[in-house]
């Protein structure tokens, strides 16, 4: 569905045309039926990659294809739905006019439009009465929903969403997450960028982590987290000073909890705590999350 090989992009910005390398050899592949997460910190190159795929930015060097066609050619976008980050739409249009406009542009037949508009508004949980209001009266969440609706109007085989959960309240986020899973269950390929890593971890079949214009890790969640050390978190009844702790043990979440990287250090800490008369509230075995891995990858750049 999407194939990106050694993609590079340099922007020229400012009066002196200073060059900024946004992508430095990005390669990844999204297969049919994937629910693919594209994660990374701000400015890592997520939106740049997405915009290149949709032809909004020109390819610097390397290769990017959508459904086997070069990214940028109008035909490659024939079966693609797209929602940009923080979308702005024509605020002088009503919700219905907006969807009709985009539906027509996507090549939907006039007779099919009415039915399809009703279907997608229901799919994104937009109230029918909101459809006759001008978009300038919509809240941020409603704009996000109608943006999703326009992306889905033409029954695309591939949906590309840039931060679809930004600006949504927790309930809205839950709805979008359910919508992505629903699309995935219908066989639609979904490629989306997000900062909500817990969601990516929970729902994505595969993901790519981009940091500083390069893919650092990619694969299934298990593959990305593979080899990541587990650690033990021990919550105490009293506060401890980091300098008093046995070697290898560090404080975590404040002075009333410690983190032990392995079983050995956990044992030595427990013996130390008994000797000090410090009570134990709980011991849990934690695996590194995507957030930890991303933090590690970002830290490598510092």
């Amino acid at each position: 569905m999407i194939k990106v090989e050694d993609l590079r992009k340099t922007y020229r910005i400012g009066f002196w045309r200073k060059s900024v390398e946004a992508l430095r050899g990005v390669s990844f592949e999204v297969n049919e039926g994937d629910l693919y997460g594209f994660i990374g910190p701000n400015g890592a190159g997520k939106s740049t990659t997405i915009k290149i795929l949709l032809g909004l930015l020109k390819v610097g060097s390397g290769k990017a294809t959508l459904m086997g066609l070069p990214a940028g050619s109008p035909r490659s976008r024939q079966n693609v739905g797209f929602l940009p980050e923080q979308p702005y739409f024509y605020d002088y249009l009503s919700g219905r006019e907006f969807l009709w406009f985009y539906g027509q542009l996507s090549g939907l037949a006039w007779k099919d439009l009415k039915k399809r508009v009703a279907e997608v508004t229901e799919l994104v949980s937009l109230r029918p009465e909101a459809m006759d209001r001008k978009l300038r009266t919509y809240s941020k969440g409603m704009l996000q929903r109608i943006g999703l609706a326009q992306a889905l109007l033409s029954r695309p085989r591939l949906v590309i969403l840039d931060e679809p959960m930004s600006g949504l309240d927790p309930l809205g986020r839950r709805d979008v997450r359910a919508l992505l899973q629903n699309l995935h269950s219908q066989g639609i390929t979904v490629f989306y960028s997000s900062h909500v890593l817990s969601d990516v971890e929970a729902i994505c079949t595969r993901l790519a982590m981009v940091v500083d214009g390069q893919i650092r890790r990619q694969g299934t969640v298990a593959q990305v987290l593979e080899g990541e050390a587990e650690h033990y978190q021990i919550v105490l009844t009293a506060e401890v000073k980091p300098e008093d702790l046995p070697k290898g043990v560090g404080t975590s979440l404040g002075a009333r909890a410690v983190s032990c990287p392995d079983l050995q250090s956990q044992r030595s800490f427990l013996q130390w705590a008994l000797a000090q008369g410090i009570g134990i509230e709980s011991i849990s075995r934690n695996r590194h999350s995507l957030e930890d891995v991303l933090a590690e990858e970002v830290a490598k750049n510092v």
Partner: protein
Amino acid sequence: MKPMLIIAVNAFRETVRDKILYNLVLFAIGLIIFSLMLGEWSVFARQTVISDFSLAVMSLVGLLMSIFVGIGLVQKEIQRKTILTLLAKPLPRWHFIVGKYLGLLMVLALNLAFMTLVFFLILILIGTRPQANLLWAIYLIFVEMAVITAAALLFSAFSTPTMSALFTLGVYVAGHLSGDIVNHLAFIHKFGKRLPGTPVINPFTEKVIKGVYYIIPNMENFNIRGRVVYDLPIGHHYVLYSSLYGLMFIGIYLLIAGLWFNKRDFI
């Protein structure tokens, strides 16, 4: 073709819902009605003054619309980032440029038609039958505005709104003066040596002036207002020639705008 027309209809809808347009139209109608009073005060024939003034108002308001709405149509889309979802649809970028242009032409045509209606009603009110030739003058005002709009669209594809407005105004002014300057050059060549005190033109400057003359459309080709007001005959060939001349510049401007637009990144 179809996506282009869909964009054109939306651009039309966008413009007719814009308050600036109504202000301009009301301003124009006010001025055309004011021509009634001018006709009373003037020593010339009433209908001549009303026709002359009304056509000048149509031309001026058309110019303002072309510049202000023309430069905003593409720029607003880029600044508000509405262009991102639009260009992500399966359509070539030049469809967007031409669609926007056609949308604005529809608005200009509608407004000129409305102003013409008021103008003709005033002529009927004073007991004069509007001459068919007036329609040719109005048609050429429309062609001139179509050229100006294409220039505004071209500049707005790669420049800021303020600079685009200045460049477009520059094309309009230079386009109205370039013919006179070239005629003046010809006059100097013919009679310069015989008339003492005539300035000598540097050959390089002359080439630049002639170059500008060919790059910028001669807007006077679209101005037959003086002739129709005094009911002088207008050859249909002249109208056809001016239309083709305008069409050529529109084509060139849109082609360059399309090529530029095709090349640019939308960050």
